[in-house]
């Protein structure tokens, strides 16, 4: 009798959804962004489901179900592996930045254009009042950008 292999498809769906959930949801919360434990847990559930689905297909006699299950499981594993690679290996591919200003050094001055097209220098940022009083400091946040 041919039965729908729900653990297989649920496992696959979960691996794909989990992959995108990091960028859509978990990236917005520091706890789940800095270490993707939520994604790892979901991936673990997905892997178990895929394994159960694969086992189920291989206990049947149908050759086509076995091939399909092997194919779907492989795809799911690739999705999981790609995420792990992107996070734990790809994310660490950063320049050393050993020449970056150190604590105690003067921050190099700059003049850049703000979002309104106005020229702004570091000195101005350090002297223009914040909340009506002289600023105690400027937090420079360099980011990759959206281009």
């Amino acid at each position, binding site marked *: 009798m041919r039965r729908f292999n729900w653990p297989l498809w649920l496992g696959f769906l979960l691996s794909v959804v989990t992959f995108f959930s990091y960028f859509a949801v978990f*990236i*917005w919360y*520091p706890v789940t*962004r*800095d*270490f*993707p434990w939520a994604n790892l847990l979901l991936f673990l559930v997905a892997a178990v489901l895929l394994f159960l689905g694969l086992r189920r297909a291989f206990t049947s006699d149908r050759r086509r179900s076995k091939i399909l299950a092997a194919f779907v499981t492989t795809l799911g594993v690739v999705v999981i592996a790609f995420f792990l690679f992107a*996070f*734990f290996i790809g*994310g*660490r591919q*950063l*320049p050393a*930045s*050993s*020449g*970056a*200003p*150190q*604590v*105690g*050094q*003067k*921050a*190099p*001055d*700059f003049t*850049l*254009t*703000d*979002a*309104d*097209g106005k020229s*702004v220098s*570091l*000195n101005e*940022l*350090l*002297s*223009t009042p*914040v*909340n009506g*009083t*002289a*600023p*105690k*400091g*400027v*937090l*420079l*946040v*360099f*980011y*990759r*950008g*959206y*281009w």
Partner: protein
Amino acid sequence: MRGIEQNIEQLRAQGIRPVAISVDSPETSRGLMQQQGYTFTFLSDPNAETIRRYDLVHAGQGEGGHDIARPAEFLVDSTGTVRWIHLTENYWVRARAEEVLEVSKLLK
């Protein structure tokens, strides 16, 4: 940067001005500010000159092989001296606003 915006009142109350810097054009930054509701300053360094001076270039990572900035945070005091640095080892991991608030208490 969302963490900064969520803590913007506390940061300003402590006299800290957050400033975001990237190779994005002012137009892109304006779009980002509107979309995300960011209220702090965004600066555009299209040729990565300032990013290079701070040794933060991530070569060839941008569109068409352009240089962009690696994520990094600096707290600079009113005399222009660097008081705290955060150079992440993994670009998914960023400094938390709470950490910045802690350090900024030490500034005079």
